[in-house]
Structures are given as C-alpha cells and as structure tokens.
C-alpha cells in the first residue's frame, strides 16, 4: 500500500522512496490508522536491483519511481556482456542501502523479510517485455544466459547481503510480469519456473527460504476466467516457492468463483499436500467499493477458507486514492468474521461499520 500511505500522509515521493525511516514511520502510522495486524510497508521493489546496475528510472514528484522502458538497460545482447563485467556493490550501490535499512527498521515493528525482484520480472525490467518475449521465441540461448546471470550474479548475492546485514532468512520475490495473461501457464513452466527453482536450490545452502509470487492469475477480464488456468497458475506458484503457499491476489480475484480455489486445495489434500492460502480484496474493488460489496467478499472468502486452511487476508494492493472508509470497512470485516474459532454461520454475525476520524484528525493525537 506504499503509494496510498505516501499520499494519505502527504509525504513527497522523493522522500518516501529514498528515506527508509520516513517510509517506515509513514507506513507504520497509516497501518496503525487502519488497524492492520502487521506493518504494511514497502517500496518500489521491482526497481532496486535494476537501478543499482545502472538502469534508467524516472522519478516523478508524486509517483513511485518507474523504469524507463524507452531506454532499457539491455538494448541488445552485447549489453549483457558489459553488465557481467560491471562491479556491483550490493551494500552501497543505488538504493541497496535503503532496502537494507528498511528491513532493519521493519524488524522494530516485528516483521521483516529480505526483498528481491524475481528473475523473470527483472529480465523484463532490463529488456522490456516485447524484446524479452522475442528472446524466448527467437534467441532462447541468450534468454537462458540472461536469466542465469540474473539469478547467479544479481539475486543470490543481493539476498546474501540482506541476510548478512539484517538476519532475514525469508526472501520475498515480486514477479507480476510472470503471470497469466502475460504468459501462458506452459510458458511459465518452461521459461520461468526453472530459474525460480535454480534460485531456491542455490539459496538453500545459506538457509534462505524463498517466497515467490510467480504465477498469480492476473486476468482482468472476468469473463475469461478459466479454472484450468487458475489451477495451472497455482502449480506455478507452488513450484516457485520454498514454502507451500498459494495466493490469489491479482486480477479480478474478487470475481473469480472461490469454489475453483477450493477444488484445487481439496484435490491437493487428497494427495496429502497441505499449504497456506493468502487472499486479498481486489485493488479495484477496494477503490470503487461500495462498502457492502467489500464486506461481503471478505465474509465469503473467510467462510470458504478460514475454517480448514492456514489462511490470511492481505490488503496489500491499496490504490492511491482508495477512500479510507473502504479500508476501514475491509479491516473491520476481517476482524469481525475472522475471529477464531470461525463461527459456523457468518450470516448470524452482525457487521458494524466502525466510526473513524479522517486521517489528518487522527494523526494529531496519534502521531
């Protein structure tokens, strides 16, 4: 929710994304305002490594930094050779120091992980999606070379430094580019998962646990929803993490039939597999509302999963201008219906919309 926290608290982007203390304190303040159960703090996680390697970013006054896809770091295959010869200091270059400090400060609030951009999304950041996809089709040898470089020479040393400097054993990867509909399930299995597994295997010897986010079904057209693709995407997710966990956080997740998720978990259980589930309220629903729809979606999700799965709700994708009432309603719904043990009939529980002050009033006596 970093953009939302930044705008709600009136912090300029050039401070929020460059000063770990400001970022954490702002995020903690906004997390407290909404009553989250853990700190929700972050930064532009897709950019850190690429920026430190010399990639061009654009720094807006009011927006998160973004990779300049007009001028990619690897314009042609020869550029990879130059990059291989570049000496990178994973403690000093770019905003690596910010990321390390961010992790250490997060620990003071009880929660921290190492962060990295996953191999495929980093390759997109270096090449641009069209060029990278063309590499897959026309120059697979170069694609393999690039992905191997990213895993062995960028992500592993970066996670190692974070582990040494923060003590974090879990590393969370961001991989929005590796998802349907950008790629098919087969393409992810053939071209993305092998490099995620290489990362998992190679970091295992340092005791690192990789929590990937490859394969989150991100289809925006609800009418294109296909349970086979959802299940294939879950297979990709599970193959891309050291821990057995599935998430349905992206796309029009709020409109997917949740029974399809349950069908997958039921089948897996028959085979003796068990994993945790993380769900969210779709970002657009959180923004557009109405409150009733948000509350009912959370109630339905808890009803289906919370009794017999290790389950958590993540309100991570909060759009910049989502009304605060919507977020308060979502948190209250989780706390109302998610109370353990989960009631047999959630319809019997009355939901009360909490009365909350506007953020700027609240902060006067809570900051």
């Amino acid at each position, binding site marked *: 929710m970093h*953009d*939302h926290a930044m*705008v709600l608290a009136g912090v300029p*982007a050039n401070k929020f994304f460059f000063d770990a203390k400001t970022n954490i304190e702002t995020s903690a303040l906004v997390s407290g305002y909404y009553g989250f159960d853990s700190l929700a703090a972050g930064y532009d996680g897709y950019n850190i490594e690429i920026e430190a390697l010399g990639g061009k970013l*654009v720094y*807006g*006054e*009011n*927006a*998160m930094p*973004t*990779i*300049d*896809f*007009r001028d990619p770091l690897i314009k042609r295959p020869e550029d990879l050779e130059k990059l291989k010869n570049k000496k990178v200091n994973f403690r000093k270059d770019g905003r690596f120091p910010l990321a390390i400090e961010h992790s250490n400060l997060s620990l003071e609030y009880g929660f921290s992980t190492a962060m990295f951009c996953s191999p495929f999304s980093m390759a997109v950041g270096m090449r*641009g*999606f*069209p060029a990278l*996809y*063309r590499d*897959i*089709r026309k120059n697979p040898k170069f694609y393999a070379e690039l992905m191997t470089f990213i895993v062995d020479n960028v992500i592993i040393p970066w996670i190692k430094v974070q582990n040494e400097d923060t003590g974090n054993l879990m590393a969370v990867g961001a991989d929005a580019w590796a998802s*349907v*509909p*950008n*790629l*098919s399930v087969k*393409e992810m299995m053939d071209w993305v998962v092998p490099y995620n597994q290489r990362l998992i295997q190679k970091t295992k010897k340092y005791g690192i646990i990789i929590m990937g986010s490859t394969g989150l079904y991100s289809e*925006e*057209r609800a009418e*294109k929803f*296909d349970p086979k*693709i959802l299940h294939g995407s879950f297979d990709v997710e599970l193959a891309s993490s050291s821990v057995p966990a599935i998430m349905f956080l992206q796309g029009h997740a709020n409109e997917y039939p949740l029974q399809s998720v349950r069908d997958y978990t039921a089948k897996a259980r028959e085979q003796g597999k068990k994993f945790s589930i993380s769900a969210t309220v779709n*970002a*657009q629903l959180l*923004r*557009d509302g109405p409150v009733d729809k948000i509350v009912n979606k959370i109630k339905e999700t808890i009803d289906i999963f919370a009794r017999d799965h290790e389950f958590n709700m993540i309100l991570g994708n909060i*759009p*910049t*201008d989502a009304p605060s009432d919507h977020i308060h309603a979502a948190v209250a719904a989780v706390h109302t219906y998610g109370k353990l043990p989960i009631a047999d009939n959630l319809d019997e529980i009355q939901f009360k919309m909490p009365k909350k002050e506007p953020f700027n009033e609240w902060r006067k006596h809570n900051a």
Partner: protein
Amino acid sequence: MIKLDKNKILIDIKKAVLTGEDALAQNLARKAIKEGAEPIKVLNEAQNAMIEAGELWKRNDYFQGDVVLSAEAFHVVMEVVEPLLSSGEIGKSGKVIIGTVAGDMHNLGKIMVIATLRGAGFEVVDLGEDVSIQTFISKIKQLKPNILGLGCYMTTTMMEMKEIIKELQKEGLRNNLKIMIGGVPITQEYANEIGADAWGKDAFDAADKAKGLVGVK
C-alpha cells in the same frame, strides 16, 4: 523467375502477422506489392490477422506475448503499405491520439492498443509515454482527433487522467472529442467518475469500444 501467387502471398502475410513473424511478414508485404497486389488488400489481410489474434486472446489461446509479437508484425506491414495508401484508405474509422500520462513509462498496453486500433481502421498518432497535459492539449488542437486514448499503469499516475479531462473542458476541447482510458488500475467506475467516455478492458476491447464511440461497425 516464378511469378508468385498473389492470393497465396496474402494468406501468408496474414499467417505471418498472426504468428508474430515480423521479418517474414514485412518481406511478404514487400513482395506482394512488387507483384502488383493492391496495398489496401495487404493491409486488410494484416487487419484480419489482428482480428483473429483478438479471437484467440478472448478464448485464452493467445496470451500477451503472442499478441505483442502479432502487433509488432502488423506494425512492420503497415510501414510497407501505409505510404502507398490513398488518403481515403488511411484511418477510415477515424483518428486517435494516444499516450501514456505524465509520470508513467509503461508502454506495453499502448503498443497493443495501437495495433488493434490500426487493425480496426483508425489512424493512430502515438505521443509516447510520460506525456504532459500541455502536449496532449496542443496535439489535440493541431490534429483534431475523434478520440483521445489515455493509458497508465500506476494508481498514482491514474489521477493525471482526471486533470487532463478538466483541462480539456477548460480549453473548450471536450465536446467534440471522445475520451477512452485504459491500464491495469482503471475500472468503468473510474471512467465514469472522471468523465471519460469509455474504458478499454484490454487492447481488443479498446478497439471495439473505439468503433462504438465513432459509430463504426
């Protein structure tokens, strides 16, 4: 020299665009023109390929990567035929100005929208990425498009769309212009809220909606 079958070349052009073989598509387009094929027929085959790509996309048989390659192959065929088309053959559906709003560098969605709009018979002027309000205004004044297409990828930059529409109203440019918006964070509710005329769920939906806005079937 064996004379090439013009119909076969046209079929091959469609196939090359559909499968994203851009170099082949461009070579075939050049050959077809050299052999006397009418440029408009070459264009029509490339457009048909984009329509078919859209059908495959809707059926989950094509994914973004496939569509991007088709869009690029379509683009290189256009490079060959566009200079040879008569003024009545270019942009018969209307003119669209398109750009990604200020602060946003993402262009993948825009690349695909441009191809589907051209495939649907629109003339498209691409203003690029990180486009300022002033640039949009001055280009609209200069080129008088039927439709303005605005794209964004981040929830911080989507708010820029609202400012652009306000500015167009202030400048008296809004009444004769349809506005379409698109990008990951956009919804129909947001389009309604800021006074846009349409929201394109994806590149193919954008082309369908654009035709609807200008009354083209």
